[in-house]
């Protein structure tokens, strides 16, 4: 070591100073280490519980397991709504190195226009956390899935994800009965059970899907999984399986429903058929229908506008919301009202000169046949659908007694069990008018109601229900759509009392008259009653859409199609043991006997003769197999 002579070095003092400073350093080192140890003690002992919880929250994620939605079937087990697997494309932005390039490649592979890159880029930023997948495209077709599979190695971070989507086969004919599911909207989120719907994207919006939402949805399960920091699931720590929604078997017979839809042939109208013994709705057709599948993933603005602006209103469920004047179809019920209230007897006759005049009024209320039917009793009044007889009956009965009696058949109120959105119709009375318009009831208005016009409005479902109760000799049945939920049969509540008449034979009198409508020489629907294989009771109706001025004559050729009369027909058969009751309405089709009665006849034939046909076929089938 070189040492300079000119410096004064006191080695002893130097070593002493160094030793002191070293000791000080040791103290400091121990102090700082103590600080570290204290910090570690704080973290690992004092706060241990907090951090163990936090580390578990980090790695353990609870994922909802949405239940599979219950299926919908017709009464014979034909599938009406199912869940189909569809494939969505998702992206995990964190795992993509070059977003722009990857999306460009994706667009190339799938053959999408270049301009979609920007839209996809926006979608890939939907998620707040970079390791959560964002939905890029939904409902990939099989070709796209194949192309993605082949190019998968070039697309890190892009995944194809399976999802079950509601699908409605034969959607047009069933659309109004089933309704549809759609994406849960902001309004619905507020009222939903968030736990149970955590993994669910769709909810019933209308129809059966809405009515039985809670049962169809089922109960969500959940699974606890361990994930890494990038959100990848490494293993399952525990799980509660979801309870799938219940399958619902409807009372609808798909074949009958389809026949009804085809008979209406795209025209505006509705057919409702009910089994009188049970109240089961066999068919509930509203025409035209629509493609409910469009609503499942979210209908496009253009498609929706198309449906909304269609003058035939395909979204409108005529069977339960269409309110029509029931017209002459209610004459058998009025006859019973007259008998029950002692206003008429079966033998009592009225002379019809072609019109009816209220006492001390000059206005003439015309019979549909201008020259009149002459002398008519109750039976003939129903068979020829004489208006004058019923003007007189209604006048003598008075509106309130008439309304009371009609309520017993379910007119003017909702009596169905599980038909979502059913309208109540209007059964007018003096009280109703006072409440609704603040006006007194005029006797002339009773006459309009007496032939099923005026304020009286009824839905096809109500007409069919009333006809079923009529066919049952007054025994009430509640119309319903669900036959079985899972394996449990549905027993709808009896919402109204059975109707007991003072004289049981009156039912037979009315049935006889209605049978003559089909088969009598004067019957209005005799052309539809030819070659019947069973005893059928029917009643036609023709509802005025356009009110003619007094003494003005109805001339179909001169009126716009939309102002033509609605054709109505109600029927049931066989009379001795009714298997089906039906109401048919064809909007603006003209007279009910010629335009609605043939449809009703075909429906009844199909339903009543079908079982025999099937019985005939059955042995042949078994021989083949």
């Amino acid at each position, binding site marked *: *070591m*070189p*040492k*300079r002579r000119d*410096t*004064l*070095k*006191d080695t002893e*003092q*130097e*070593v002493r*100073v*160094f*030793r002191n*400073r*070293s000791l000080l*350093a*040791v103290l400091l*080192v*121990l102090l*700082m*280490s103590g*600080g*570290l*140890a204290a*910090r*570690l*003690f704080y*973290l*690992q*002992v004092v*706060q*241990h519980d*907090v*951090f*163990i919880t*936090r*580390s*578990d929250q*980090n*790695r353990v994620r609870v994922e909802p397991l949405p239940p599979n939605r219950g299926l919908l079937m017709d009464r014979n087990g034909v599938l009406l709504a199912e869940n189909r697997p569809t494939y969505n494309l998702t992206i995990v932005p964190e795992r993509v190195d070059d977003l722009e390039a990857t999306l460009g490649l994706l667009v190339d592979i799938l053959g999408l226009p270049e301009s979609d890159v920007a839209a996809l880029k926006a979608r890939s930023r939907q998620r707040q*956390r970079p390791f959560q997948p964002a939905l890029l495209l939904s409902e990939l077709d099989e070709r796209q899935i194949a192309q993605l599979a082949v190019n998968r190695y070039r697309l890190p971070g892009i995944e194809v994800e399976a999802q079950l989507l509601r699908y409605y086969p034969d959607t047009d004919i069933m659309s109004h009965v089933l309704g549809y599911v759609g994406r849960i909207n902001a309004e619905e989120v507020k009222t939903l059970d968030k736990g149970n719907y955590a993994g669910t994207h769709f909810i019933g919006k209308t129809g059966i899907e809405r009515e039985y939402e809670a049962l169809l949805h089922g109960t969500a399960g959940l699974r606890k999984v*361990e*994930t*890494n*920091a*990038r959100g990848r699931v*490494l293993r399952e720590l525990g799980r509660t399986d979801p309870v799938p929604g219940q399958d619902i078997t409807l009372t609808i017979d798909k074949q009958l429903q389809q026949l009804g839809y085809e008979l209406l042939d795209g025209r505006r109208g509705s057919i409702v058929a009910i089994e009188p013994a049970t109240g089961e709705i066999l068919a509930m057709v509203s025409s035209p229908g629509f493609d409910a599948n469009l609503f499942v993933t979210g209908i496009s603005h253009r498609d929706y506008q198309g449906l909304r602006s269609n003058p035939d209103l395909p979204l409108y469920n005529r069977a339960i919301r269409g309110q029509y004047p029931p017209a002459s179809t209610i004459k058998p019920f009025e006859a019973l009202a007259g008998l029950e209230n002692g206003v008429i007897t079966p033998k009592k006759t009225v002379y019809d000169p072609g019109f009816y005049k209220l006492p001390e009024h000059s206005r003439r209320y015309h019979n549909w046949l201008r020259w009149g039917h002459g002398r008519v009793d109750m039976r003939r009044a129903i068979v020829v659908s004489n208006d004058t007889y019923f003007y007189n009956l209604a006048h003598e009965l008075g509106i309130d007694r008439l309304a009371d009696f009609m309520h017993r058949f379910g007119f003017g109120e909702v009596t169905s069990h599980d038909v979502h959105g059913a309208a109540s119709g209007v059964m007018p009375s003096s009280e109703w008018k006072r409440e609704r318009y603040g006006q007194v009831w005029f006797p002339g208005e009773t006459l309009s109601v007496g032939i099923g016009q005026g304020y009286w409005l009824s839905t096809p479902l109500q007409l069919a229900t009333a006809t079923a109760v009529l066919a049952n000799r007054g025994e009430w049945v509640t119309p319903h759509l669900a036959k079985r939920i899972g394996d449990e049969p549905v027993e709808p509540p009896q919402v109204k009392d059975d109707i007991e008449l003072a004289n049981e034979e009156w039912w037979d009198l009315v049935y006889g008259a209605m049978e003559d409508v089909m088969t009598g020489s004067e019957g209005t629907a005799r052309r539809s009653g030819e070659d019947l294989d069973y005893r059928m009771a029917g009643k036609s109706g023709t509802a005025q859409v356009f009110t003619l001025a007094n003494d003005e004559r109805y001339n179909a050729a001169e009126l716009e199609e939309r102002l033509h009369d609605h054709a109505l027909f109600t029927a049931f058969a066989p009379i001795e043991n009714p298997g089906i009751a039906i109401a048919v309405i064809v909007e603006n089709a003209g007279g009910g006997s010629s335009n609605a009665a043939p449809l009703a006849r075909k429906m009844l034939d199909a339903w009543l003769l079908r079982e025999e046909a099937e019985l005939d076929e059955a042995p042949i089938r078994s021989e083949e197999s």
Partner: protein
Amino acid sequence: MRLQESTLLPNRGRSIKRRRSLWLRIHLDPWLLGLLFVLMLAGLLVLYSASGQRMPVVTAQLTRLGVAVVTMLVLAQFTPGTLYRWSLPLYAAGFLMLIAVEVMGDVGMGAQRWLVIPGVIRFQPSELMKLVMPMMVAAYLHRRPLPPRLKDILVCALIIGAPVVLIARQPDLGTSLLVGSAAVFVLLLAGLSWRLIGFLGLLAAAAMPLLWLNMHAYQRQRVLTFLNPESDPLGAGWNIIQSTTAIGSGGVEGKGWTLGTQSQLEFLPERHTDFIVAVLGEEFGLIGMLLILMLYLLIVARGLVIANSAQDTFGRLVAGSITLTFFIYVFVNIGMVSGILPVVGVPLPLVSFAGTSSVTLLAGFGILMSIQSHRRLLAR
């Protein structure tokens, strides 16, 4: 029995003496060497787990440690006199390289730290300065009377200040502070007067706002995040939240080797480099943390013993400074990972997966061994 014992004792004594002389002959300190090997072994164990049980990472670290150990062995062979003579040239070279980095350095990780001779070497001059700086200051003071006089202190301030400013401008605030502190330790150990220390302390406090104004945005963010990690839980605060969660969830006994969820599931960032001690804390618990801390303290203790038994000023000051700087690395790293210090890029000595830092550290211990093993027998 008694007879046997007494006849055996001299033999044993002789064998110990011979072994010690062997260690002296190859210029190594067995205590320091043993402690360092235990530390490195423990480090490799933790690294295996922290790397996600990837053996290639462990073998890569093994290679780096091998290079570092060789560097240590080689440096131990030089006499302190040689090191003393090399101090000025090495300092001058390091300073020039820092200027070169300033002019044409390679940008890595947003900071300009590397000097690259393409195809030959990537080199961080600041790493070199970690060792050369205390050597230079000690060499300067070696010839002066101690405690240092004001004139000498001012010269030292210049020797320290110029490279520190250059490193800080790269920008690498952490390293510049560590390099600076290594040199300041020399001054403190040399007996810098308490009055001056107090004055400099005040000056440093006064300079804080100035430092703040000259910080880069990311550096300020780090300080702010340190003060309140929850303010930015997904960004800069993520590291601290995850590392404290890892350590805290380890508890007293730890979750077990390779069973730490925070580290194995990749919630812990930088888990095999700067934040490796969080893996240790999570998997080996408080017991593991205290053991590793104890190991570091034993190394520091041995270093200070060597410093105090050094025979000249240069040896004393260099050995003391290197030892204390080593402790500072440990303290800053564990303090940062456990959330009591802001996040600065300091690896855990000889445990973190880091090449350059390991070489520098073991080179430092090589110098310590040189000082220990080249003592002239006469002075004893």
